[in-house]
Each structure stands twice: as structure tokens, then as C-alpha cells.
């Protein structure tokens, strides 16, 4: 199953997926080249390859969506591809916003891993599911965008802590000089959280609208709803305290990373084992 071209050729989403993985891998190689060799042109090529990979990835997702008549979020592995695409999108946005390419070397393996999960574990689309409407699709995609933004914040915070450790222990390594400054990493992590929080609020709002249409209630408490509000609360606290005297710096980064475990819990345990409580049909 896949996209039908103008000449009747059907392009399978797995073929598009493997093409995408190849382009992303090339982009990652260039980001690593930029990080270790410091060649600015290698960095520019990495960005172009990332954008190209996102274009083919988009068509792979479109092919998968055509086959199941829905945005591909039916199963965990299928949705990881969507998460990978949003991760790449959010990263690209933040890269352009902060004009900082060094972090691509750390983000691209995550993108590849998520895409790989779909290609290796779930190469075939889930069975067709009943259509649930545009608002439901927006609810899910907004939430996945939020998860991708929180993933980026996690990566930035992790790199912050490693660099903070190296600087405080006076053990700078050659690669460190090519990483963003601590203040920039902190700013980038906060940008990621702002994007994530915004998307999560939008996603929850759409979810409440769907819930209201189906049940007449604005909010039906279930594990997914509870964990989503917890995530919202953790990251809101992070934003509040990350600039306070007691927390700014490494402590805020630890808080950001700790909050991310709630996201992972929501995406794995809750989605895999408790999703039956969170059905909009």
C-alpha cells in the first residue's frame, strides 16, 4: 500500500520510509562532521538533508495515512514515525531560531531510532479504523508535537548538564568547544518546553472538545488525562522556576529531564497498557 503516482506506480510507505532513513542517516553523518570537524558547509548540508528527509518522511506518513484512512496513530510503533517527523520538524525550527547546528548530532539518532521502530517492528500499517474526525486528529497530532518538543528539551538539558560538569571539573574536551554555550542550551531547552506546553494545551483542548461531543462532559478522568495534566504541571513548574535564583542553571536542567520521564511514561506504559480507558468512541 502506498502513494499512487501520476503514471499509476504505487510507492509503498516502507520504501519511502527506508529512503527517509537513508537521508536522515546522511544528515546525521553531516551533523557529526560539523560537530567534530567544525566545517560550516557540512552543517549546512546536514540541514538541507534533514529538510529533504522530512519531505520524503512526510510522503511516507501520507502513504501510511492513505492506507488506514487516518493520521497514523493507531498503534504505538506506527505513531513513532509521526513522533520522529515532529521531532525533526521541531528541531529544524529551533535550529533556525537559535542558529545553532551542533545539537543535530544528538537529535538525529533519536529521529532515526523512532523511524527505525516503525520500519523494523511495524512495517505494515494497522488495520483501517473508523474515521474520528479532524478534531480528534488535531488532538493526537498536537500531543505528539508536544512530546517531540519535550524530547528536544530533554536532549538540550542533558547536554547542558554534561557541559556544566566538564566546565566545573575543568575537564573541557575538544568536542565541547563546538557545543552551544550553557546559556544558549538553557534558552533552547526553554524554547522547547514553551513549544511543548503550547502544543499540549492545544492538544488537551481538542481532546476536551471531542470528549464533550461524545459524552457531554468536558473532561473524563482516565490515566491518559491524568498523566497529561501532570506533564503540564511539571513543565509549567519548570518554566516558573528555571529563572529563579535557587533553580537557574543545572538544577532547572535536572527538573526538565525529570519531567521528561512523565512523557516517556505516558507514551509507553499508559499508551500500551492503559489506553483502553482513553477511547473517544
Amino acid at each position, binding site marked *: 500500500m502506498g502513494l499512487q503516482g501520476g503514471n499509476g506506480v504505487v510507492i509503498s510507505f516502507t520504501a519511502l520510509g527506508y529512503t527517509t532513513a537513508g537521508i536522515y542517516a546522511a544528515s546525521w553523518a553531516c551533523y557529526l562532521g560539523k560537530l567534530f570537524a567544525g566545517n560550516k558547509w557540512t552543517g549546512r548540508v546536514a540541514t538541507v538533508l534533514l529538510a529533504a528527509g522530512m519531505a520524503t518522511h512526510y510522503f511516507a506518513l501520507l502513504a501510511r495515512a492513505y492506507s488506514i484512512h487516518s493520521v497514523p496513530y493507531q498503534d504505538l510503533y506506527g505513531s513513532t514515525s509521526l513522533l520522529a517527523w515532529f521531532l525533526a520538524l521541531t528541531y529544524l525550527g529551533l535550529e533556525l531560531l537559535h542558529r545553532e547546528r551542533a545539537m543535530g548530532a544528538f537529535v538525529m539518532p533519536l529521529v532515526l531510532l523512532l523511524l527505525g521502530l516503525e520500519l523494523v517492528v511495524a512495517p505494515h500499517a494497522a488495520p483501517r479504523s473508523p474515521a474520528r474526525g479532524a478534531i480528534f486528529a488535531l488532538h493526537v497530532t498536537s500531543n505528539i508535537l508536544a512530546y517531540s518538543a519535550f524530547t528536544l528539551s530533554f536532549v538540550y538539558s542533558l547536554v547542558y548538564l554534561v557541559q556544566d560538569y566538564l566546565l566545573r571539573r*575543568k575537564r573541557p574536551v575538544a568536542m565541547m568547544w563546538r557545543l552551544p554555550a550553557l546559556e544558549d542550551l538553557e534558552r533552547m531547552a526553554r524554547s522547547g518546553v514553551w513549544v511543548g506546553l503550547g502544543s499540549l494545551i492545544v492538544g488537551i483542548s481538542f481532546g476536551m472538545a471531542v470528549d464533550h461531543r461524545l459524552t457531554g462532559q468536558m473532561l473524563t478522568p482516565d490515566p491518559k488525562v491524568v498523566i497529561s495534566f501532570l506533564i503540564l504541571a511539571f513543565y509549567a513548574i519548570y518554566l516558573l522556576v528555571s529563572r529563579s535564583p535557587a533553580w537557574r542553571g543545572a538544577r532547572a536542567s535536572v527538573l526538565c529531564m525529570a519531567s521528561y520521564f512523565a512523557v516517556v511514561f505516558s507514551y509507553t506504559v499508559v499508551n500500551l497498557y492503559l489506553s483502553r480507558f482513553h477511547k473517544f468512541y
Partner: protein
Amino acid sequence: MGVYLLGVNHRTAGVALRERLHFSPEEGLRAATKLRNDGVVDEVVVLSTCNRSEVYTVAADTRTDVESGVERNFCVHHAVEPEQLNGCLYRRRGRDAVEHLYRVAAGLDSMLLGEAEILGQVRETYLAAQREGLTGPILNRLFQASLEVGKRVRAETRLGAQAMSVASAAMKLAEQIFGELRDNAAAVLGTGAMGAKAAMQLRARGIGRLWVSNRNPERAHELAARSGAQWAPWDKTAELLAQADIVVTSVAGTDWTLTREALAAAMHARGNRRMFLIDLGVPRNIDPAAAELYNIFLYGVDDLNEIVEQNRQARESEVPRAEAIVRAHVEKFTAWQSGANAVAALAELKQKLRLQRELFTDARSEDLARFSADERERILRMMDDLVEEILREPAERLMKDREVRERAVLLRDLFGLNETDPSNSSGPGGRG
């Protein structure tokens, strides 16, 4: 036409002699112009930096007094006796001179290995000489290639990367903590040599606000004026600490200039915003226990020296790669130059054979008189064609085979050809 270099650098002469032998840009152009106008050389570039004064020349092989002429001009210009320079001057010819310039442009010949400034100095010097018409096809090619070598070495190796001095290592660390420094404030406590260097570096890196403070206010005023900083009274240090993100200390004395308690109070006052402390004092000025405070980064001279040493080792490990680039370009230039010389020699041989044909036919004009004008014209054309035919195969082999090109310059000796400028010939020996 070979490249000849005469020079003095930091390896062969002390700073006092180098200063005496230094050419300002104007003096360099003047000395070069004199060398060329006196007919000593055909092309000349004088390269003078704080580490070296070098004269690169190209002259026809028929000139026999090039080396002595260049040296005489060098000594006269600086009003020194040649004996005073015994053992200090170095001379390089041909391939060695080419390799030397490439090493200079690559930063391999610099006192600070891989320094970035030298490439700009080579470029400026070359462009000025070119504007004055002092360069020709060979030095144009040589200097343009040297700029390419310099760029490649910096792009493809880490020879020129990272910090090089204690002060610049400290600035690099500051940028690793704060990013661009234009939104940050810094204070320099103490106006010794290290403090002054740090103030200048901070200003050069575009620090937002800069204060200078010293026990002796006059010296603080003097450094503040020199570095474009603000002066701050010594007894207001606590207020400075609350505002400055970067604090450099270089104060003489045995007591802590900044104690842990003072810094803890400062961190409280500044809401725990990150603070980078650079202790350049010997003995140390800042209580090492301050490093335990949250969001404080404290580096002393030894820490910075360690970074400088790491960087030096990292740069040195890149030397073989840089030298490989230099060697590849030396080969390229040598191949080009031998090709240029060979093509020029062949063109001269052709010219000489035609001239001999003309002399031959002139000497036999009576014998040719019995032919009609048309027939004479045809005979002369056939003789010209014969010359072309004889030289056609050697010319083709010359274009194809590098070894033949290198041997072809023997044509000059065999046929007694006069030296000519390869720029007058076509083909690979054209203007570079």
C-alpha cells in the same frame, strides 16, 4: 625563471634584530620597487610580519647577480652590514622557496602554531604588490596558491582551531558559558600585564560592559582609558561582583582578594546568575573554596595553562596533515612551473628555427632567383611547414608527459636559447 627567497624569522633572529629588519607595508613596497627598477629581479614581494621579514623574487636565469643583489638591497634598506646578519639570513631556491611560503601561509612556520593572522598578512602583502605591478605570472601563481594552501589547512585540519594563549583560553571558556558576550558585564581587578591583556581581550570580544579596578586608582584610570572600560573604585568591589558575569583578577598580594564569603554574598545579590571567575594572580587571588558555590566557574592560571597545553598538543597532532597539503601544492606548483618553462622553451626554439630558415633563404637568394615569385613563396611555405612538422611531435609529447616537460628545459642548453618570460607563451604556462 626560479623563485628565490631571502629572509629572517623568529627561528634565526631575536626580537631586537627582527624589529630592526622589519619592513612597514610602505617600506616593503619601496624596497621591492627599487629591486625591480634596478634590474635585479623581474618579480618581487616583500613579506614582513612580527615574526619574519622575507623577500620573494623571480628573475630570469640569465641574471647572475640576483642573490647578491637582493641581499645588498636588503642590507642597504635597513642600514646594516652583511656581516651583522651572518647566520641570521636564510636563502631558499626553487622548490624549497615555494614550500617555505606555503608553510608560512599555513601557519606551520609561525611562533604560535596555526595562528590565523598570518594568512591575512600574506594576502594583504600580495595584493599590495600586485597593485603596484611588482608581481608577474610566477609570483601571482605562487601567492594565490599559498592563500589556497592556508585556507585548506584551516578548513581541513584543526591546526588553527581553539585557544592559544592563557587570555584567549579564558575568553573561549567565557563564551562557552555565556555565548556571545555583548549582553554580559565583566570586571578586571588589578592592572598588571595579565589583567591588561584580559581587558583588551574582553573588549575585542565585544563585552557589553567592562569595569577596571585597582588599588592604585591612577593605574586603573590608565587601563580603563586604554581598553575603553569604566573605572570603578577598589572599595566598591562587592557592588561590581553583583553586576559582573566575568571577573578577572590579577592582583599582587598574599591574601585572598575575593573570599568564599564575599562571593557567596555576591551570588545572592545577583540571584545566582552564572559567574565566571578567572584568577590570573600568582599567588592566587580567589579562595579556591568559592568553586563549590552554585553556578560559579572558577579557573586559575594552572587550569588555563592546561587547556592551552591540550590545545597545543591537539594542533601539533594536525601538523602531518597540514604538511601533506603543503607537499601536494608544492608538487602542483612545480609541475605547473616546469610546464610553463618547457612551453616557453619550445616556442623559442620554433622562433629560432624560423629565423634560421630566413637566414638560410636570404643567403641563397641567388639560387632562389631562378624561381618565379609564386614558386618562391611556395618553397618558403613548405620550409615553414617542415619546421612545424619537426616540432609537432615533441610539442604533443610535452603536453602529455610530465617527465618530458621537466627535461624539455634542456632545450635551452642544447640550442642556446635565450630565456623568455613564460607569460608570453600560451598553454599551461599562461598567466596564473
